[in-house]
C-alpha cells in the first residue's frame, strides 16, 4: 500500500501514468454501454447471460448520472472542455459534476487553479457557461 498512500486526486497526485490516461465521462460511458447492450441483444440468443453484474450496475449508474444524453451534446462537452488544457481526469470530473460556479468548480477540482491555466474566476465561469449552453440546446 505504501505507494498508494501518496495518491491524492485533490492535488492531482495520481502518478504520471494516470494523468495521461484516457478517461471517460459518465455520459460517454453510458453511450458505449447502451450500444454494447443493444448489440448483445441482437447477436446473442441470451443477452442477459453475456452481461455481468458489474456491467448491469454500471449501466444503471451512468444512466442516472449522465448530465448529457444526446450523443452530439456529449461530443461537444468533450470538445469544449478540451480547449482548456485540462488533464483527462480534471476534464471528466468537470463533465460529470457540471459545477455551476467557479467557486464550486474549484472545490470539486482543486488542481484546476494550478499551472496558470485560468487567469481568474471569470475564465472558469466562461468555461462553465459554455457547458451549460450545451445542456440548454441539447
Amino acid at each position, binding site marked *: 500500500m505504501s505507494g*498508494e498512500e501518496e*495518491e*491524492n*486526486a*485533490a*492535488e492531482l*497526485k*495520481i502518478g504520471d*501514468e*494516470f494523468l*495521461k*490516461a*484516457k*478517461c*471517460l*465521462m*459518465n455520459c*460517454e*460511458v453510458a453511450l*458505449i*454501454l447502451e450500444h*454494447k447492450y443493444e448489440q448483445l441483444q441482437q447477436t446473442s440468443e441470451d443477452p*442477459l*447471460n*453475456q*452481461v*455481468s*453484474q*458489474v*456491467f*448491469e*450496475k*454500471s449501466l*444503471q*449508474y*451512468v444512466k*442516472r*448520472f449522465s448530465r448529457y444524453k444526446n450523443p452530439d451534446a456529449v461530443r461537444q462537452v468533450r470538445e469544449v472542455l478540451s480547449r482548456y488544457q485540462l488533464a*483527462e*481526469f480534471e476534464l*471528466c*470530473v468537470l463533465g*460529470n*459534476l457540471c*459545477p455551476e460556479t467557479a*467557486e*464550486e468548480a474549484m*472545490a*470539486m*477540482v482543486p488542481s484546476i487553479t494550478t499551472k496558470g491555466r485560468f487567469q481568474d474566476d471569470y475564465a472558469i465561469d466562461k468555461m462553465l457557461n459554455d457547458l451549460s449552453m450545451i445542456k440548454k440546446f441539447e
Partner: protein
Amino acid sequence: MPEKENPSVPAQDRRERSHFHCNTHSPESGHPPSPVTRPPPESRYEMFLKVQLPWNVIIPAASLESNGLMLQRCMILRILDDFASKKASKHFGYYMAVTTLDSIGEGKVRNSTGDVLFPVLFSGIAFKIFRGEIIEGVIHKVLKHGVFLRCGPIENIYLSKIKMPDYRYVPGEDPEFMNDKLSKIKKDVIVRAIVLGTKWLEAEREFQALVSLDGDYLGPVS
C-alpha cells in the same frame, strides 16, 4: 427511478463456468501466470477509463474449425465470458465492457488437452475510484452510525456519521439523517462526497471506500 437488482441476471454463477482460470496454473504455458500481470504502459485508469489488456484465451479443440470467422467469434465470446467472470482487479478496478479485440497472437497447442491458447490484446472500459476524488453516489442503506452508497459497480461506499457532523440520525420506519437546514440524507438520495480512502478485497474481488461530506459543495444533490 431507484435502482433495483435484476434477479434475472445470473452474474455469479457464470464465474464458476469459465474454464479460463484453469490455464493460470498451467505449468507448461510460458505465459504470465495471471491474465493481467503486465499492463502495458499506455493503459491507465480513472473513474471510467479506457484500458488495453493482454489476455490469454483458451479455445477448446472442439471449437476449432477451419473457418476463421467462427474462431474469432468463439474467441470473442470467450473473452466476454472471462471478462465478466473476472469482475475486477486491484490495478485496473472493475472490468466493465470489452470494446474491441485489437490483436490476436500466435496460438499454441497445449499438449495435455489439445486446446489452443491464444495471447490476445483487447480494449475495454474499467472503473476505479481514487482518494481525494469527488464522487456522486446513491444511498441504499441507512444505519444508525452512517449510510452506504452505491457508485457505479461499487456497492460498499461508507459515509460515517462522524464524517457528516451537522447531520443527526432520525430513527423511524424509513430512517434518515437530517441537518438544521432540513437537508435530508436517506435511501435513494444522491450524495456528493469526497473519497477518503479505498480498499481492495482480494477474496471478494471488490473495492470498498470511505467517503466524507467534509468540504465545500458536498452533500445531498437534488
